[in-house]
């Protein structure tokens, strides 16, 4: 009954893409679509708020924290490279650096939100700017948190000695996601702190 017996000629085997990679790329595609809608809403509502505070009044570009987040893309790349060279200790160090940089970025967001909410009186329900700002930046921060949780899991595993060079593929998938989170920030930063201000 097996279907192999039906052929005498055998086909040339084809190199198929890895399913984890395809899955992660399509997930990134879906997430990009979600972000696109939030970015469109943000741009559409620039300058449409009926009351203050406006972005010009209260927003300062978080240059340092953005540099932290963007450099975490470099560190996670170096971590993956170390694992490919079978150097688990170096991997752990770069991996920790990635988590630390991501956490610093989150701290920056938290500080900014605290200032906006308690000192500038801008909340999600204050005006259109508040609504769009907190949801767009919040959506991104949510993705950073999810990414950090996943990274921390891997870091705990590596501290406990479970991460081996054979896990290079899984680590690569996670770093794809992290690169996505970082590159979305470039868009969000441009829209919120440059175009919108």
């Amino acid at each position, binding site marked *: *009954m*097996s*279907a*192999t017996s*039906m*052929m005498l*000629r*055998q*086909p*040339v*085997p*084809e190199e*198929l*893409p*890895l*399913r984890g990679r*395809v*899955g992660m790329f*399509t*997930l990134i*595609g*879906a*997430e*990009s*679509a*979600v*972000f*696109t*809608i*939030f970015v469109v*809403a943000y741009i*559409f*509502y620039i300058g*449409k*708020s*009926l009351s203050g505070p406006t972005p010009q009044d209260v927003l300062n570009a978080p240059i340092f924290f953005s540099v932290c987040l963007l450099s975490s893309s470099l560190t996670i790349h170096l971590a993956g490279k170390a694992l490919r060279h079978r150097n688990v200790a170096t991997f752990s160090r770069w991996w920790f650096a990635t988590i630390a940089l991501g956490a610093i970025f989150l701290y920056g967001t938290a500080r900014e939100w605290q200032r906006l909410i308690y000192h500038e009186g801008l909340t*999600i*329900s204050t*005006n*259109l700017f508040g*609504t*769009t700002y907190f*949801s767009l930046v919040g*959506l991104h921060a949510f993705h950073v948190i999810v990414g950090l949780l996943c990274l921390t899991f891997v870091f705990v595993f590596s501290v406990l000695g479970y991460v081996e060079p054979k896990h290079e593929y899984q680590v690569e998938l996670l770093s794809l996601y992290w690169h996505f989170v970082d590159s979305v920030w470039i868009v969000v930063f441009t829209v919120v702190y440059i175009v919108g201000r």
Partner: protein
Amino acid sequence: MSSNSISWSNDIVEPRPVVDLLHEWVTTVDHKRLGLLYIAFALTFLVVGGIEATVMRLQLIRPHNNLVSPQVFNRLFTMHGTTMIFFVVMPILFGFGNYLIPLMIGSRDMAFPRLNAFSFWVMAFGGLLLYFSLVGANGLYGAGNAPDVGWFAYAPLTSQTFSPGHSTDFWTLAILVSGFGSIGTAINILATILCMRCPGMSLGRMPLFAWLYLVTAGLVVLAISPLTAAQIMLLVDRYLGGHFFDTQAGGSAVIWMHFFWVFGHPEVYVLVLPAFAFASEIIPVFSRKPIFGYSVMVAATVAIGFISMSVWAHHMFTVGMGAGANTFFVLSTMAIAVPTGIKIFNWLGTMWGGSIEFRTPMLFCIAFLFQFLIAGLTGIMQACAPFDWQLGSSYFVVAHFHYVIVGAILFCTFAALYYWFPKMTGRMYNERLGRLHFWLFLIGFHLTFDFMHIPGLLGMPRRIYTYEPGRGWDIWNLIVTVGVFFQAAAILVLLVNLLWSFWRGTRAGNDPWDAWTLEWSVSSPPPPYNFSSIPAILSRRPLWDLKHPGDPDWRYEGTP
């Protein structure tokens, strides 16, 4: 049979406790079982959504009827639309995709089996959440309350001011969670088709079914995600006091329409492409010819996928978008008719000169061709913005999109149900009952939806719960409602046929249709691991090659 194959139906050995069986179905990650769960779930909701439609038509059977109150009527059309789109058509299409894609491309399961199970259960949860609103929504005066904002839930109807209580929250949450399920399934289908094909199954040799699902899944990823984003915004508005769609605070109600239809129009193609997939498998088999113009079909599919992302605002001509935007969306909408027309010609080309067998699946497919043509033509009519200004939000629109969703998608789904029933159950359906279903449904469909165009042209708006006599709408509404009874009877015949054949039908064997794709090479129903050894293929019709070793397709096909 190889010795290591596990027996699929061990009820012959000893009957298993019901709890065990149930537990197996709940915890399963097998793509075939999940496919069947999707289909069963969808058929259940088809009956529920059908009952809602029937009650609405009974209310409209004559002027000044008092069967339901205006409030209940609003809930009925909201629940009918939401149910049919999100909890009938989407799940049944995912069900067939789940069941058939791994079998057709020679794989043992989907790429991510657990994600598959998660997606199904999340979607099922979404459906139950929507209907839990009937008892849990705590509407006005504390009564249970179904959502009543229409299936596209235009702002500002959905704001706390106009929609107090929780009925709208149930609507938005149900769609949000079922959207997660849809995105999960779409990712799964993409990864399965791209990564799990058997040796020799190049993209150019895949069954068209797989190609159409590939494009569908891509559209789901790009279309459902905006809907998810819009639902999150709606939740922010309703729970956190946001102003996305709050016109009082400078927000825009029109941007909700844009966000909704950015999802909504690709969604039409998400629903119809799998129907095309069914037709593209069934028509060749019952015409005894390979599909005509395979590569053109693929190209047309991909073209539809791309163009469908740029036509959404033809749902919004009556909003007043300005001449530039109107012109763009008129032209893009007209453009999408071209690849769709190519497909119809290719199906006709497949039938041309074939020796057609008029079995039930083929009957449904032939009816689909005619009806889809008419649906497309009324679509082109409304693609003209000035024409749409006259008929927007009239019964003409209702007739048009039901012509697509019932006349094309549901007909193809029925065809698929009959065509793959022998594979899924191992039993043949009853042909006589199948034909009865077809003719009853055909008559009912045309009574209802042909005559629905006319009151629309005469100016009857949609979503009204009653109307005055003497406007010339009475007789048409009566005919439309009479058609519903035929359709309901036909669905009853279908359910009787499915249940009766499941237990009493004759054994179907592996390949009752003398078909050509890989799913017919395994036993019916297929064993848990599908293929005891992974097949290797050389052409688009591997079973033809197997059955005709002297004249195999790969000699002529020249596929990579």
